[in-house]
C-alpha cells in the first residue's frame, strides 16, 4: 500500500526536495506552501503522515497540526522549524506531534523517522 505524505512548508525548495525524494522512494506526496493549502489538502484526502513547518506565512504550523490530528488522530506528524523555541516544541508535542525536527535536518534521518512512523 502506497503511503501518502503531506509536506507543508513555505520554502519552495524544501518542499520540492522532500517531495522528489519521497516520490523516488515510492511514496505518494502532496505538498502545500501555506496553512490554508495544507488544511484544504487534508480535507480532500488524509495523508498517513504530515510534515509541517511551524512558520507559515498565514498561520502557525501548530494550527495545521491541530486540524490534522482532529481529522484523524492516527495521522503521524513530523514538525520542524528553523528556530527552536522550547515552548513551541512542548505545544507541538501536546498537540500530538510524533517527531520534532530542527532545521537543517538530515534527509536520511527524516527517511528513518518516516519509515518508522508509517511502516
Amino acid at each position, binding site marked *: 500500500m502506497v503511503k501518502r505524505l503531506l509536506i507543508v512548508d513555505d*520554502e519552495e*525548495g*524544501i518542499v520540492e*526536495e*522532500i517531495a*522528489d*525524494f519521497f516520490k523516488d522512494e515510492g511514496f505518494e506526496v502532496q505538498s502545500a506552501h501555506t496553512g490554508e493549502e495544507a488544511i484544504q489538502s487534508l480535507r480532500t484526502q488524509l495523508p498517513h503522515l504530515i510534515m509541517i513547518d511551524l*512558520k507559515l*506565512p*498565514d498561520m502557525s504550523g501548530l494550527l495545521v497540526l491541530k486540524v490534522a490530528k482532529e481529522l484523524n488522530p492516527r495521522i503521524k506528524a513530523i514538525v520542524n522549524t*528553523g*528556530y*527552536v*523555541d522550547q*515552548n513551541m516544541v512542548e505545544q507541538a508535542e501536546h498537540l500530538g506531534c510524533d517527531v520534532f525536527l*530542527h*532545521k*537543517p*535536518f*538530515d*534527509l*536520511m534521518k527524516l527517511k528513518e523517522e518516516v519509515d518508522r512512523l508509517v511502516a
Partner: protein
Amino acid sequence: MGEAIFSYTGLINAVTSFALGAFVLFTQWRFKTARLFSVFSFAVGYWASFYYLWLSARDGAFALHYIRQAMLGAILIPAAFTSFVFAFLEKKGFAFNLINWLLAALFLSFSFSPLFITEVEPRMYFHFWPVPGPLFHVMLAYFVVNVIAAHTFLWKALGRVRGIKQRQIQYVFLGTLLGFIGGSTNYFLWYNLPIPPYLNILVSLYIITVAYAIARYKLMNIEIVIRRTLVFAGLMAFVFAAFAAATFIAREILSRYLKLGAYGSYAISIFLVVLGYDPIRNLLLNLTDRYLFQKKYDYQKVLKDASRGMARIESLAHLTRLVIHFVTMRIRIKNAAAVILDDNYQCFKVAFARGYGGEWNYSVIPVEHSLIQYLSREKEALDLEKVKELQISSPLRGIRRKGESQGRDYDFHAIEEKMNELQAACVVPSFLGKELRSILVLGEKKSGDVYSEADLSVLFTLAQESAIAIENARLYDEALNKSRELEKINQQLEEASRRLILALNDAEDANKRLLDTQAQLIHEQKMATLGRLAASVGHEVNNPLTILSMNVSRMILKYRKDPNIRVADVSEYFEKMESNIQRIKAVVNTLTGLLKKSEKGKFEALSLKLVIEETLPLVQFQTYLDNLTGTEVEFDIPANLPLIKGDLERLQEVFLNLFTNAYHALATQKDRNIRVSARVDEGNSKQIIVDFKDNGCGMDEETANRIFHYGYTTKAEGKGSGIGLYMCRYILEIHGGEIKVKSKKGEGTTFSLTLPVYEEQAARVAR
C-alpha cells in the same frame, strides 16, 4: 552803735534778696513761680533797703520817710509770698490772690498817711522808731494771716507730694518761716515791748535756704549762679561789715586816743577790705562747695575710681555691669541700667540692668525717639523733673534756649513715658565724638533725694569717660563675637563639607547603581534584539541549509545506487546547492555589515536617511516571524537634511524598535503603511524632527501615556519585554533629544523624535 548793727542786717537782707530775686528773674523768667518769687524777693529787698536807710538816718524827717518806704515793701511781702506759694504748689486761687493784692494796694495807698505811721520817736537805743497808726494794726494782721495761711498750705502740701517737690517744699517752708520769724522781731518795739529786732538777720536765712534748695533740689533750676550769688552776697556783707567795724572802731575806740575823722575810718575799712577780700572769698567758695556742692567733692573721687576701673575692663557685659553696680552703690539708687546703641545703629538696647523687678517690661528705643533726639542734640543729662517742667514750659513742645537761633521740637510726653518705662529718674547720655553711643539710666535715689544739677553734671562727666571704655569694650566684644561666629561658620563649613563628601559618596554609589541598572537594561535589550535576530537568522540560514543538506544527501544516495553517475545527471542538484549557498552568504554579509557599522563608535555625524535605510534589513530579519510582508514603507527625508549627531548602533536600535512596534500594530490589517519623514525644527535650527507614522491599530490615551514606561507592554506574555520604547526614550535622551507619541485608537500612531544636528556642519551652514 546798736542801731548801726541792725541797720547792717537790713543791708545784708537787702543785698541778698535783690541778688537772689534778680538772678531768679533773669534766669527763670519763663516760670510763673520764679517771677512771683522774684517779686517776693524784691519786696523783701525793698523793705530791707529802706530798713537800712531808716536806721542809718540822722534826721527824723528822713527816718520817717524811709520807714514809710520800708513799709511799702513790707505791705507787698504777704501778697507776693502767698501768690508765690500758690504758684509753687500749683494751687488755684485766683480770687484769693486778687483780694490779697487789692488789699495790698489799699494799704499801699495809705502807707504815707499818718493813719499808717503817725510819727517817729526814740525807743530804746533807736533814735527814730515809728509809732503805728490804726491802719498799721490791720496791715500787720493781714500780714500774719497771709504768712500763716501760706505756711499752712505748704505744710499740707508736704504730706501730699514725694521726691524732689517734697524737699523743695520743706526748704521753702523752713526758710521762709525762719525769715518771717526773724522779721517779726521787728514788731515788738512797735508795740513798746522792749525787744530789739535781734533776729532781723534771720531774714537772710530764707535766702540761704532757698538758695540751698535751688542748688540741691533744683528749686528754680539754678545752680551755678547761686554759688556766685552767695559768694557775692557774702563778700558784700563782709565789705559792709568791714566798713561798719572800721567806723565803729574809729568812732568808739580809737577816737578816744587819736583824732582820725571820717576819712581815717574809711582808710581803715578799705585796708580791712583789701586785706580780707581774697581769704573771705576763698572761704566762701569753700563753704559753698562744701555744704551746697558737697557731692562734687565725693564725685571727684568717684570719677577717678570709676575711670581707673573702666580702663581695665575688656568685655562690654562686664563693663556695663561694673558701671551699673558702681552707680547703684555709690549714688545709692534703687535701679540703674546701661542702654547701648545697637550694633546696627538702629536702636538702643538695655545692655545691663540692676535693681529692676522680675517683671520689668521695656522695649528697645528707636533712634528716632524724642528721648534719643533730645540727648543727642542737647548733650546734657535729663531728669524726670526737668522733663515735666519742659513739658509745662513748652506748650508747643518746643524749647527755645538762650543762644539758640532755632527751637527744637521734642515730644516731652513721649520722653516722660519712656523714662517711666525705664523707671528712670534721670538719664545721662554718653557720647563718642559727637555720636550718642550709650545712655545711663538711673532710678530714684534710695534716700528719696532728687538728682541735683551737681549730680547730673558729675554723672555726665562719668558717662563721657565711660563712653570710650564702653566703645572699646563694644569693639572687643564685637571682635570676640566675630571670631566666635567665624569659628561657628568654620565648623558649619566643615560639617557641610563632611556631609557633602558623604552625599557625593552616596551619589557615586547611586550613580554606579544606576549605571549598573542601565548596563543591565542595555544587556536585556541586546539579548532581546539578539534573540529576535537569532530567530530570523535561524530561518534565513536554516532553510537554505536544509535544502543544501538535502541536495547533498540525495546526491550521495544517487551515487550509491549508481557509482558511474555523470555530473550532468546531478547538475540540477549542484545548481540548487549553489543558489542556496548564495542565499546563506547574503544573510551573513548583511549581518556582518551591520555589525561592522555599529562598531564604529559613539556620537558621530550620521545621515538620518542612511541610518533608517540600513535599519530596514534588520527590521526584516526581526519581523520575519511575524508575517508582515507587503508592508509599505515610505520615506520622506530631504536629501539636504543636515547630518545628525548620534550613535549609529543606538539609533538603529531605536528605529528597529519603532519598526517592530509598527509592524505589530499593523499585523491585523491588510492595508499597511509606514511613513518616515524628517525636517529641521522650525523653532530650533539645531534640531531635526523625525515623524514615524503608521496607520496601524493605534492606542488609547492611557496606553500612550505609559508606553515609555519600563516594563510596560501590550503584547502577549512572553512576546514583549516592555523595554523597547523605554530604551528608545533613554537613547534619545542621551542624544539630547526626545521622543513623543501621538496616537488614536484605530487611526494609527505617530512617534515624533528630535535629534541634534551635527554642530560643525550647522556652524558651516550658518556662515
